[in-house]
């Protein structure tokens, strides 16, 4: 019973001892000032927000960023050279194909000419034979 009474007295004393205290004068103004400071800092951050939106967090490190730029540039140069080489090969192949077609056409016309000449000779021979008979 005495213990309960003691506890109750202690609890009452604690409630008095731990009463809410008034904040120091100008507390609200100082919070507002810090908010304004933070707002100005926030504006600066928001300028770079679009970059953060497009860039995965791994690119936050400058070394990774520059490494990526270098790798992409190297890939573009190598890709360009390779593209030119393939284009050149394709053009050479096309020219060779045109030359082959031309050669085939010439050979075909020569054959046609030889064939018509052979047919002409054969026709003459047949005519002469008929005359003899």
């Amino acid at each position, binding site marked *: 019973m005495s213990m309960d009474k003691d506890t109750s*007295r202690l609890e009452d*004393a*604690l409630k008095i*001892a*731990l009463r809410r205290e008034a904040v*120091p004068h100008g*507390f*609200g103004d100082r919070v507002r000032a*810090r908010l304004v400071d*933070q707002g100005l800092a926030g504006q600066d951050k928001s300028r770079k927000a679009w970059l953060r939106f497009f860039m995965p967090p791994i690119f936050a490190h400058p070394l990774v960023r520059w490494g990526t730029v270098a790798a992409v540039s190297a890939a573009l140069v190598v890709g360009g050279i390779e593209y030119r080489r393939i284009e050149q090969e394709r053009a050479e192949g096309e020219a060779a194909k045109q030359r082959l077609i031309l050669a085939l056409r010439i050979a075909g016309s020569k054959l046609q000419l030889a064939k018509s000449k052979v047919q002409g000779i054969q026709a003459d021979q047949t005519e002469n034979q008929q005359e003899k008979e």
Partner: protein
Amino acid sequence: MAEPVLAGKAAEKPAVITETDFAEIVHRHQSMVYSIALHFLADAAAAEELAQDVFLQLHANLHSMKSDDHMKFWLRKVTSHRCIDSKRRYRTPQISLDEAPDPAAPTPAEDLLLARRLRQLVASLPEKPRLIVILRYQEDMSADEIAGALAMPVATVKSHLQRSLAMLREKASRIIGEVTI
């Protein structure tokens, strides 16, 4: 009298909170936040800085406040966590309540001195029990509410409270004597 911002449960989606609204919110809760920090840290300057940090964090999270009660709960929780974090960051050598030297016995009718000595005793408690005692006797929170704010089991809160009270009673009775306590 003006209706408090986010009053009651109706304010599910608060309208845009103006600077004046926020100033009013700060004014309404500043004493609570500052006093928790002050009683925990026992350092007025550090308590003010911590309280300012809490309100800056509140400003950044205003959109998630559902009601005034929710905001009060959030403020007590964030203040408590910041108190513990702050004590861990700037750890000062602590002595346990048992090892704390007994202050000299008070002269009769020294209520202010009694309160000051009790605050000293509370300040000498370990971090979590100290916070529990502050939330219980400053904020008049129940064990359930404290458990919710500090994310710990209710039984732990109750046991911390009982042990702290026993230690405080023993120390206080040695200091002040049976007559006062």
